[in-house]
């Protein structure tokens, strides 16, 4: 077990290092000079050059990578070119929007999906199952930004229950802040809920077809009781796996939704930073998200190993 754990950790670390090199290399070839952009159309070549050297843009490539990667290790992400504040501050400011948004969306999707999946599995083959799974099929197919548009026009413009976009800020109180996150969270959660409901149903049915469940049924245990007592618990592993992956997806997948609702989250930050050629911000945020995905994958791997010893022995 320890060997397996160590191996997984080493692999995760190597992936992280390789990923950082890829991110750095890709962003080095971005066309467009950040110094020129900051100074605008009328600045002279000398002014641009002055700013370039102030920003350290003229140092050799390897030096800049080491400098950047070394900084990452002790959470020093450098300073944003355009905002001239530490990147960590920006990430923290934006993270308090994206993280709660992803969490709320995940919670919503779970609250919708698990009961639907349970219901469908318990009514397998009946009309209710067909309707629920049909709805899930449609849910998977809906692009979340289109759904978001429909939500805005229904609940913000027409009914005026919630703001059409923007973020009130946590300083304005919990309720106004939550209100501005409700629509984006719903838009994000629906397609995820549809996927999760399908996975839940499938996992339950798979467990239900196992021999011990059949035995329990043969012994006269009611179907519902079997479903609750045995099946759900055993089906939890694939469901949790998907939820883990979905959370990683949600964190990064908020990009488009944050743009629809102009929420000041990490996704918007990245898009703006790309447009303004604020490379250090793009690098740092992408790296953070990559690290998050790697960490989540690691946790999923490890939890698999804990539950399923066969996996461990095979490695």
């Amino acid at each position: 077990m320890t060997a397996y754990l160590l191996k997984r950790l080493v692999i995760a670390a190597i992936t992280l290092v390789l990923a950082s090199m890829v991110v750095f290399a890709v962003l080095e070839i971005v066309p467009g000079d950040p110094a020129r952009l900051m100074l605008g159309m009328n600045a002279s070549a000398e002014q641009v050059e002055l700013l370039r050297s102030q920003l350290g843009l003229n140092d050799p490539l390897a030096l800049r990578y080491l400098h950047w990667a070394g900084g990452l290790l002790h959470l020093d992400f450098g300073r944003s070119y355009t905002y001239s504040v530490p990147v960590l501050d920006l990430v923290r400011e934006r993270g308090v929007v994206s993280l709660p948004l992803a969490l709320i969306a995940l919670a919503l999707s779970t609250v919708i999906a698990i009961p639907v999946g349970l219901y469908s599995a318990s009514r397998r083959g009946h009309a209710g199952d067909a309707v629920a799974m049909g709805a899930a099929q449609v849910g998977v197919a809906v692009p979340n930004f289109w759904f978001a548009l429909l939500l805005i026009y229904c609940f913000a413009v027409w009914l005026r229950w919630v703001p059409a976009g923007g973020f009130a800020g946590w300083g304005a109180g919990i309720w106004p802040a939550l209100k501005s996150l409700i629509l984006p969270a719903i838009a994000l959660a629906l397609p995820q809920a549809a996927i999760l409901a399908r996975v839940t149903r499938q996992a339950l049915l798979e467990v239900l077809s196992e021999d011990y469940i059949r035995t329990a049924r043969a012994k006269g245990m009611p179907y519902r009781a079997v479903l609750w007592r045995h099946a759900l618990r055993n089906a939890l592993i694939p469901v949790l796996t998907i939820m883990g992956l979905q959370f990683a997806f949600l964190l990064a997948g908020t990009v488009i939704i944050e743009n629809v609702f102009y929420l000041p989250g990490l996704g918007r930050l990245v898009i703006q930073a790309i447009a303004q050629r604020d490379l250090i911000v793009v690098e740092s945020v992408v790296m953070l998200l990559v690290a998050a995905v790697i960490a989540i994958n690691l946790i999923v791997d490890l939890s698999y190993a804990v539950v399923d010893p066969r996996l461990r022995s095979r490695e």
Partner: protein
Amino acid sequence: MTLHTDVPEERLTDLIGKALANRSFFVGLLIALAVAGAALLSFVWTPYDVARLVISDKQQAPSWAHWFGTDHFGRDILSMIMLGARNSIAVALVAVGIGMGIGVPLGCLAAARGGLLDEALMRLNDLVFAFPALLSAIMITAIFGPGAVNAIIAIGIFNVPVFARVARAGALSIWPREFILAARAAGKGQTAITLEHILPNIATLLMVQGTIQFALGILAEAGLSYIGLGAQPPMPSWGRMLFEAQTRMAVAPWMAIFPGMAIVVTVLGLNLLGDGIADIIDPKARRQR
């Protein structure tokens, strides 16, 4: 992951009979054919010529002349959707092609050789998987310039590890089989075995994954072109049509509704088709229905 067993020698007529009896497959096939048909038709005919902008006809509500209405440049939305189908299909199809073309050989190779090569290839896979796909696609298209080709590449790259994993897992489950052992005993090489025995046995598996990735590709393309990083004008694309509709939702809602429906219906059709294929071929999945 559920893997199907060795392909039973079923008669073709049986298979077709089963296929038509499967509702998912049937509906999915109809939708897919309709969308593909509309895209093909657009090469020779569309109700209106959308290359010519008739500003004086802008934002007309749906009518007999324009079934789905017109957009802010006076273009016929039905014609735009037909042309957009071509773009969506092209992008998703090539992206799946890239994923299969690179991913499947890699996966088969990893399964056949095992050892260090397998380990290295799978770590490479992990590396690509670690990048949030959509965000990375946005980064790639933003850096190398927006456009259909870069969108295809960005989406295609993230299909590679998916197919590599599926192919490897499928191949690994088949290698220990007796008929493979027999082939090896007869002196066949790894390449020959992979081509003659492994690939035919994982083909359906890849087909199911292919339809899923195709549907995801259409959604990804729509997302990219919605934020302006997909196909560029004058080539119509569903995602950009939605973006253009957004400022005009209150006065011309049809500009948003029809392209959105086109995406939903197409993706739905492909997913149904994938489910259907899996149902028909995979006895275990069928038993669960």
